[in-house]
């Protein structure tokens, strides 16, 4: 560690661990809260709002439930839990497609800050993130969109040395980039891919909210023109930070995908029980019944993959290699959610193809989240590399 980035308190050795009963309690608390604050009507209202999420619900998530703090280090206002606990929360948010800056702020940005080992950045940013008063995001504008930054592949260049730099370029797809207070950027620096922090109020910082496939997760383009930025971590050290972020983020995303897939399965099953055709519930026909069984099988396998990955990323003894498990979960859960979201529409028939029915919201989320970190071509190849092939 250089003097500019004092070593952070090592939070990993003191990771808190929830018991099975506590995890169930956490799940119930989040589910109950979301049932009252984020039903379909509320989600649709948030989608149509200017910022894309309900600010009051976000404030309650932070102040009443304390969820942003859950998996942050205790030294910076967090509760010190891990990805296992975080996954429970994200899974519930995924079930209802909650529009919120949780994923971008807590999963992407906070993980990057912690992984950078930069105590100054952690002191500056994590307490606000834990309290829900700071929203943030992370962008890795590599040309392939695969979140694997290498020198010369990034769309943003940094000039300047030491703690201060100036950014030039553009990040085309920034999750919740339209509202985040702070944007962490991986840019081509003098020493290679480097992580920087940019304040959204900085000069030379311009953002454009984009039309999105997934209506429940906003994406923006951010243009940097001589925007002042602050170094986070070591110069040229962003690749290893992003590698850690990728493991945590794809694992959390897997939990979110399982939540969404489970909601689709429940929707399809409930409809198959009540929809009558030919004088019988359609769920009594094997063509429909077996489709539902296939969906269940996919959800069960995906759930196992997401759960195992969370344990692996947290370093729970006896779990598989975290890089492999995260890559398995990312592939399996992406595929499962997409398949189940599509089959849900099929089980519903015509009604499932209407704007009014929520099925398309899940279909949109499924496809967008499958592609968020590069898509199948990227995640399958990454899996093989992680497994040593």
């Amino acid at each position, binding site marked *: 560690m250089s003097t500019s980035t004092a070593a952070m308190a090592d939070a990993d050795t003191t990771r808190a661990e929830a018991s099975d009963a506590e995890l169930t309690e956490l799940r119930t608390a989040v589910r109950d809260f979301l049932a009252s604050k984020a039903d379909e009507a509320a989600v649709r209202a948030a989608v149509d709002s200017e910022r894309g999420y309900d600010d009051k619900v976000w404030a309650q998530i932070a102040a009443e439930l304390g969820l942003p703090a859950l998996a942050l280090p205790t030294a910076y206002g967090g509760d010190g839990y891990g990805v296992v606990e975080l996954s429970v929360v994200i899974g519930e948010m995924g079930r209802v497609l909650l529009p919120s800056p949780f994923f971008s702020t807590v999963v992407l940005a906070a993980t990057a800050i912690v992984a950078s080992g930069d105590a100054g950045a952690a002191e500056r940013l994590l307490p606000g993130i834990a309290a829900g008063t700071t929203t943030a995001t992370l962008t890795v504008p590599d040309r392939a969109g695969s979140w694997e930054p290498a020198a010369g592949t990034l769309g943003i260049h940094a000039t300047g040395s030491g703690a201060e730099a100036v950014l030039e370029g553009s990040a085309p797809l920034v999750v919740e980039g339209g509202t985040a207070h702070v944007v962490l950027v991986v840019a081509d620096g003098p020493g290679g891919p480097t992580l920087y922090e940019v304040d959204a109020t900085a000069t030379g910082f311009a953002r454009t909210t984009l039309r999105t496939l997934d209506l429940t997760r906003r994406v923006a383009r951010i243009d940097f023109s001589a925007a002042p930025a602050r170094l986070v971590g070591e110069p040229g050290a962003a690749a290893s930070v992003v590698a850690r972020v990728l493991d945590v983020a794809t694992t959390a995303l897997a939990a979110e995908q399982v939540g969404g897939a489970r909601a689709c399965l429940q929707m399809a*099953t409930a409809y198959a029980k009540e929809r009558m055709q030919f004088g019988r519930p359609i769920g009594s026909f094997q063509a429909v019944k077996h489709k539902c069984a296939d969906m269940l099988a996919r959800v069960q396998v995906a759930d196992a993959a997401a759960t195992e990955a969370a344990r692996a990323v947290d370093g729970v003894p006896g779990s598989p290699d975290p890089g492999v498990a995260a890559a398995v979960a990312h592939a399996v859960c992406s595929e499962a959610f997409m398949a189940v979201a599509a089959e849900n529409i099929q089980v519903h028939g015509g009604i499932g193809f209407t704007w009014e029915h929520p099925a398309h919201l899940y279909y949109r989320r499924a496809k967008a989240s499958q592609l968020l970190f590069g898509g199948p071509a990227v995640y399958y190849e990454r899996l093989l590399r992680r497994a040593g092939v």
Partner: protein
Amino acid sequence: MPSEPDGSGMDQFVAEARAFLDEHATRRAHTSDEVAWGEGEDRITYFSTDPPEVEAAKVAAAKAWQKVRYDNGFGWITGPPEFGGRGLSTLHDLVYDGLEAEYDVPDTGVLSLIGLGMIGPTILAHGTEGLKRHYLPAMYAGDVIACQLFSEPGAGSDLAGLATRAVRDGDGWLLNGQKVWTSVAHHAAIGLALCRTDPDKPKHKGITAFLVDMSAPGVDVRPLRQMSGGAEFNEVFLTDVHVPDDHRLGPVDGGWGVALTTLMNERASVGGEGAGAAGRAVALPFLTELLRANGRLDDAAARRRLAELYADQAATEYLNHQALRRFRAGEQPGPEASVSKIMYGQNLTRGAHFAAEIVGPRLIADTGEWGTFSWTELLLATPALRILGGTEEIMKNILAERVLGLPKEPSIDTKSPFRELRRSGRAEA
């Protein structure tokens, strides 16, 4: 296997098992992950295709090893002590299996898959005191192999449609009919037979279960050659076979409940880890060597298919880990276990077809090249994985009805007397 202190004396059990195995067996030299491509026997077996003398030697070795286990307290870890068991939990059983997998010991599948895994628990649950004392210790000591006389040519997925008759005959019963797909019948001393005792009752309500002496007059076991070429299964013809009434399991016409016990134990045993030659062949290390040997390691299309397969294999393994963790926490395995079985069959099938694509035309005929034609054996076995132990379709019905709660199809055959039902191979009334 972990041996955390959980209040069950597991640490001590592990130490004892380890000492037993060290004394009576040799540890495997290689871990199963290591692949020596091009070396060793060029066979990818799923069903055994051994010549009779080799098979007989393997059965003898299996019985001998089971005897050693039994004499040292590891023959029936979960069984009640009064019948030769150890009286420990299923977790102890799993822990022991994990330890034993590190050693080179004879495969005891001929005893355990059907007899010890399914028939034993059924006798324990439904047998009279006399039957339990007579058979259970002998079975778990490796002396008695048991088979399952359930499926019939006219009763496959619809097992309750079975037609083998049992009629009263003095102090016992006279059995007539045909059973099929009977594993290990040619080695078995006893068989658990489901028979129709009252055709005037609805199909589930007129069935009775019997333990049949496989050496009794009128029992004719004939090998059934399956599509892969070998004859692992049998047809069993029962012609005027006399069974004493004290060899009945459960009440007269109460055989369906007995069958459910057996089937529950079957579903618990199928779909576990993909061990064995076939499981190792379709696992990532071996398939990677297959690609390397065929110059396809940089072939993007091949890599993509391999990755898709590996992702599902790994996730299935994670599913089994999770089931094991739940089990340790005291949860009983539910019908969800069918997911594991479906995935296991699919993954093995995909692996065989993937390998076939890489090997290409060298799979058509035996060119003598190592690691090519040998895939035919697995390829020809995989269709069975979607059928045996409950077809994929039946598994999906179970998942949909018992887990998701979807309605059953309107039934047209559960209320009428059995003799009035339309059945295959029988002229319509």
